[in-house]
C-alpha cells in the first residue's frame, strides 16, 4: 500500500526517471520500479501499469534497448539498457526538468 505522502509519478516525469535509473545499470522492469521507489525514498510509487507502456514508448523512440537475460535466481527476464541516443536525451531531459522546477520555484516564491 502506498504510504501517506507518497505520490504517483507524473506521466512525463516517469520517462526521465526510467532513463536515470537505466543510466546506472541495465535492469528489468520490476527492478526499475523498485529502484525508483528506493531512490525516491518511497516517495514515488511507480504505477506498474504505466511502467511497461512507458518502456515500450521509450524503446519505440530508440532511447532504450531490450534483451532477454537470466537473472541471479536463474529466471529469464527482459533487461532494458540505455542507448547512446537515450543517454543524450537523458541529459537534455534532466536539463529541462531542472529549468521547469526552477521556474515553478520562482512562481511559488513570488506568490508567498
Amino acid at each position, binding site marked *: 500500500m502506498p504510504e501517506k505522502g507518497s505520490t504517483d509519478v507524473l506521466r512525463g516525469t516517469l520517462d526521465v526517471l526510467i532513463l536515470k535509473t537505466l543510466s546506472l545499470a541495465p535492469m*528489468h*522492469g*520490476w527492478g526499475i*520500479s*523498485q529502484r525508483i521507489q528506493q531512490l525516491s525514498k518511497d516517495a514515488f510509487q511507480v*504505477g*506498474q*501499469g504505466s511502467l*511497461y*507502456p512507458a518502456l*515500450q*514508448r521509450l*524503446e*519505440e523512440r*530508440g532511447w532504450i*534497448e531490450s534483451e*532477454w537475460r537470466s537473472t541471479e535466481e536463474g*529466471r*529469464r*527476464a*527482459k533487461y532494458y539498457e540505455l*542507448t*547512446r*541516443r537515450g543517454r543524450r536525451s537523458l541529459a537534455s531531459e534532466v536539463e529541462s526538468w531542472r529549468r521547469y522546477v526552477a521556474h515553478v520555484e520562482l512562481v511559488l516564491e513570488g506568490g508567498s
Partner: protein
Amino acid sequence: MNLLKGRLKQLRVLLRKDDVERELDEELRYHIDMETEKNIRSGMSPDEARRAALLAFGGVERYKEEVREARWVRLFEDAGADFRFAARTLRRRPAFAVAVVLTLAIGIGGTTAVFSIVDGLFMRPPAGVDAPQDVVRLFVVRNEGAIQTPDGGPGSYVDFEVLRNGPRGLEAVAGLLYAQEMDLGRGADAERLRGRAVTSNYFPLLGVRPHIGRLFYEQEDDVEGAHPVAVVSHAFWNTRLARDPRVLGRAIELNGKPLQIVGVAEKGFTGIDSDPVDVWVPMAMAAPLGLVGFTGDSGWRQVAGMTVVRIVARLGAEADREAVVRDASAALRHAAESHPQLDPSPDAILAPLIPARGPHRAQSASLALWLGAVAGIVLAIAFANVVSLLVTRSTARRRELAVRVSLGAGRGRLTRQQLVEALLLTLIGGAAGILIAFLGTGVARQFPLPPGVGTVDLRVLVFALGVSLIAGLLLGLIASARSGWVDPMRGLRESRIQTPPSRRRLQRGLVAVQVALALTLLVGAGLFLGSLRKVYEIDPGVDVERLIAVSVDLSKVGYGSPEREAFYAEARRRLEALPGVERTAMIHFQPFGGSAMGIAYEIPGGHESTYAGEGPYVNLAGAGYFETAGTRILAGRAFREADGPGSEPIAVVNEAMARILAPAGEVVGLCVPLSGQIQSGGCTRIIGVVETERHRYLDDKPVPMVFLSRDRNPDAIPWGDKVLLVRTNHGAPAEPSVIRSAMQSLRSDLPYVAVQPVSERLRDEILPFRLGATLFTLFGVLGLTLAAVGLYGVLSYFVAERTPEIGVRKSLGASASAVVRLVVWQGFLPVGVGLIVGIALALAGAPLLSSLLFGVDSRDPLLFGGIAVFLVAIAMLSTVVPARRAARVDPMIALRAD
C-alpha cells in the same frame, strides 16, 4: 543502426505476433512473481502475497492493452479483426448499411464518371508524344486588318517561317493544316479519311517514330507537288490495310491524286487533336490535293493572308516561356511591316498541347468542367446525408460504446473501429460507385467524345478509390469525434439516449447545405432545359426533316463546268425517279454548312454596304430550291427551270435583305447593282422574297441573304461545295444508302459520295445544349432525391426521439395540428435557410454559365422562384410522414415506454 533495429522489431511484431504476445506475458508474469516474493518476504501468506501483487498491478489485461497500443503497428495488426468486427456490426443493421452504401455509390459513381471525361479532355496529352509538357501550340493574335484573330488563331505559312527562324528557346517549330477530309479511292469502295498536311519536322518534333517504313524527308517540304507521298496511322494500317507490310511503296488515291505510302506511324499516335488522323501528307502536297481552300494555288505559302497553318513547337530544355513569347511577337511584328493589309503589331501566344487547355476550348469541354463541379456538389450532398445517418446512429450506439469503454476497451481502439467501419462503408460504396460510373460513361459515350475520353481505366479506378478512402477517413473522424467523449457512467445510466443539442445543430446545418446545393443544381438544370427549349423553338426557315445533302467533288474526275452541270441534271433525274424521293434541287452553300460569302451591293440612290460580318451573304440556288428546302416564299416567285444561262440577272432575297433594300416599299421588281466578286456592271432584278432562314448555324443571327440563280451562272461563286439537296417522302423515305448507290450507278469511278441528312448537322449544334440539359437534370434529380431523403431521415429521427415529449404535450392538451406544426417547423427552418443560401449561390454562379446557354436569362426570376416553390413542395412531402407519425402518438404508450 538503432533506427533500423527499431523498424525490424516492428516488422517482427507484425509477422510474429504470437511470439511478441508471449514475451509480453512472460515479462509481466515475472514482474508479478517478483512482487509476490517481495510481499512474502515482508510476511504475507503466499496467497495473500499474490493477490496483493495482482491488486497493485491492476487488471493485467488492461495494461497489456495499453502496452500494445503504444505500438503503431497495432493499427495494421488489428485491421483484419476490425474489418471483421465492422462487417458484423453492419450486418446487424442492414437497412443502415444499404442506405449509406447506395448514397455513397451515387455520389462517388457520378463524380467518377465525370472525372473520366474531365481527365480525358484536360489531363491527357495526345498519345504517342514524347515529353508532351515541352510541346506547345503557338497562336497568332491579330486585332485589326483583314484577318482578325483576337483569341489567337493559326498563322500563315509566312508566319510559320518567321517563327521557325525567329525566337530563341524553341528547339523546333512545325506546321500543320486544319482537319481535312480526304477522299480515298473511287467508286463503291471510296471512303472519306481524316487527313493532315504537315511539315516534315512534325513527326521528329513530337518524337514519333515510324512503325514500319519511314516518315517525311526534309526535301519533301520544298517543291509543291513534287513528292506525292503519304504516311498512314497504325490504326488505319491495322484495320483497313490488314497489317500488310507490303503496302510500303504502294500507291493510294487521295482526293483524286495518286500518293505513295512510305510509312506507318508509331502505334498509338493519332495526331495531336481530338479527332484521330488516318493519313498525313507533306505540306507541299496541300495545294495539289486541294486542302488550302479555293485557290488551288501553289503560291499559297507566300500569301500572308492565308492563315491556315497551325503551329506547334518544342521548347528547349531551359526555355523561358515569357521570353519565347516576347521574341516570337517581336519577330512577327518585324515581318508584319511587309504585309500592310494585316495587323501591324501581331502577338504570339503559347498554349498547352492539350486542346481543351488552349484558348479555343470546345463548348463540350467547358461543359465537362461544369459537370465536374456539379458531380462534386452531388457528392457533397450524398456525403452530408451519410454524415447525418452516421451521427444519428452513433447517438443510438452510445450505450454500446459506453459498455465497451467500461469493459476496458482503449479509446484509440474505439476510434479505430469507427474509422474502419466508415472505410468499409465507403469502400463498398466506392465499388458500387464504379459500377454506376461504368453505366454513366456508357451514357456519356452516346455523345461524341474524343477517343479514350470517358472510359473507366486504371487512373479512373484509382480516382474512385482515392475519393472513397478520403470520404471514409473523413466520415470515421467525424463519427469518432462525435462519440469520443462517451462517459461510461452517464452512457449506461441514461435510459433513453438524448441527442445533444450540438448534434441537432449539425444535422439541421447539413439539411440546409443540402437544400442550398440542390437548389443550385436545379437552377443549372432549369437554365439548360430553357436553352434547349429555345433552341428547338428556333424556326430555321428550312424544314430539315427528311432533307438529305448529297455532295461529290467532280473536279476529281476531271469534269469542267458543262460536264458537271450535265452530271447534276442527270443525277437529279435519277434520284427523283427513286421511290421515296419527293424532289431535288441544287444549292451552292448548303443550309447549316457553316459557310457563306459576303457580297456588296448598292441601294438604288442609297448607300453602299460594308462587310461587317453580318451579311449580306450570297448563295446560288437552283430551280426548285426553296420548295425542296421548305423555305416559304413570301412574295414574287422562286427560281424555275426556265431561268437558264441566257436570261437577265435575277435574284431572290430574304425578308431581312428586302427590308434593307426597300424599307417601306415593294422590293420585287427592283434592279439592284451588286458588286464584289459576283458581278460587275449592270443590276440584278429581284424576283421574289423568301422567309429569313438561319443559314450558317442554327443560332446564327438572321442575316440578309441574296440568292442568285444557279441555273443562270453555276460558277458565279468560285469556291465552296455544290450540294444536291434531296427531299424524301413522308411515308417511306429513301434511305441514304439507296441514294448513294443511285449516285454511284451514274459513273463507276466517282470519288466518295457524301450523303448526309441535314438534321445531323443540326444535331451536332444542338448537342451541347442537350448534353447540358440531360446531365444537369440527371444530377439535379439525384441531388434533389438525396436532399429529400436526408430531410426525411432527420425529421423521422426527431420525431422518434421526441415521442415522449410529444406524448407529454398531448396529454397536457396539445392538439394534433399543434404537434404537426412543431414537426413541420423543425423541418422548415433548415429548408428556409438552405433556400436563401442556395438562391444567393445560384445568383452568383449562374452568370458564369451564360456562354453555354442560349436565349435564357441566367437570373430568370421566374425560374428561381419556381424552383424555390418546387423545393418547398418537396420539403413538405418529406415532412408529411414524420408529421403524421407524430400526430398519431398515443400519449399513454409514449409515456409508458420510458
